[in-house]
């Protein structure tokens, strides 16, 4: 699923150090761009590519979290299958739902990764428009730059398409977990009903005992002269 994501991420990975916090990545990218400007090497390119860089960083972080999800799903599925304790199964589903929900949050339409993807694509398309009207370059140089940006556009589109797939997959998974949870909830209700039935049986038994005792007592009462 994530092959194209890997391609784009790995292609962009070398520029900035990986950082867990988006904030840190943002600050580092700005700082690096400024350092590039100050030294006069690579001025412009570092700043221009910023939305694409940010998208790549977010994709990378997202990708890293997916293998954990697969493991969690496998572990939980095993536990749920073998669990006879309904409450435990429900807790497993809760835990799994939390994990899937976190991932869905990243790739949801208003989530950080998707938003960065949209920004990155907008940036590339604006760059292509600007380049088409830019007279600073020779025709062959301009064509080369346009080709490079188009290649990046195709890769970014591919990556966002895979995000769409991931979104649909996580949403489907969350829906399935909800449905299963509802089923487990029903099992829990059956168990509660069974407990209630057991209590009623005990009560009935006790009432019968009491009734027998009472009958014996009544039967034992003999009026004088009888």
């Amino acid at each position, binding site marked *: 699923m994530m092959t194209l994501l890997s391609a784009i991420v790995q292609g962009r990975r070398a520029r900035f150090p990986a950082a867990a916090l988006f*904030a840190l990545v943002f600050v580092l990218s700005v700082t690096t761009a400024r350092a590039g400007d100050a030294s006069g090497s690579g001025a412009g390119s570092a700043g221009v590519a910023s939305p694409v860089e940010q998208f790549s960083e977010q994709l990378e972080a997202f990708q890293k979290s997916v293998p954990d999800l697969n493991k969690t799903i496998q572990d939980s599925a095993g536990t749920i299958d073998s669990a006879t304790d309904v409450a435990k199964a429900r807790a497993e589903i809760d835990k799994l739902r939390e994990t899937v*929900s976190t991932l869905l*949050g990243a790739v949801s339409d208003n989530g950080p990764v998707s938003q960065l993807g949209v920004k990155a694509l907008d940036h590339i398309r604006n760059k292509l428009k600007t380049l088409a009207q830019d007279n600073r370059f020779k025709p062959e140089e301009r064509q080369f730059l346009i080709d490079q940006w188009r290649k990046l556009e195709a890769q970014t589109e591919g990556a966002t398409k895979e995000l769409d797939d991931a*979104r649909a997959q996580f949403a489907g998974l*969350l*829906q399935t977990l909800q449905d299963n949870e509802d089923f487990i909830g029903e099992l829990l209700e059956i168990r509660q009903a069974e407990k209630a039935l057991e209590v009623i049986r005990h009560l009935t038994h006790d009432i019968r005992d009491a009734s027998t005792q009472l009958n014996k007592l009544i039967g034992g009462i003999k009026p004088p002269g009888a």
Partner: protein
Amino acid sequence: MRRLLGLTAGALIVGAAIAACRPTGDVGYVEIKTVPVAPVTQTALYIDAAKLAPIKKGGAILRQPTGTLKLQADGVAGSLAPLCDIVVKRNRITTVTISVLERPPRCQCRYGGSDVAHACVS
């Protein structure tokens, strides 16, 4: 040394700003499907007062704070026409299908919605 301090301070400020912008508390998801499916839905939709980005390819999944949200569309004379309520629960997804050909658009809930309150639940 001064540069390092500046970098750390910057990271803290931006980190704090991002943390402040994140929705606090529990979140869930709203899946909006539009029929008929179009590359981009022209009908403007709102969750409470917030206008949604045009829905592409007939579907969108949005992260929302938990609670009851009001789904609305553009009505007459610039007012908003309420379509239905959506109940968002923690780590759950509530699916609603909107028929955009009707005026005003009509809500169809996957679960719920047949009651008077017309609320979609997960």
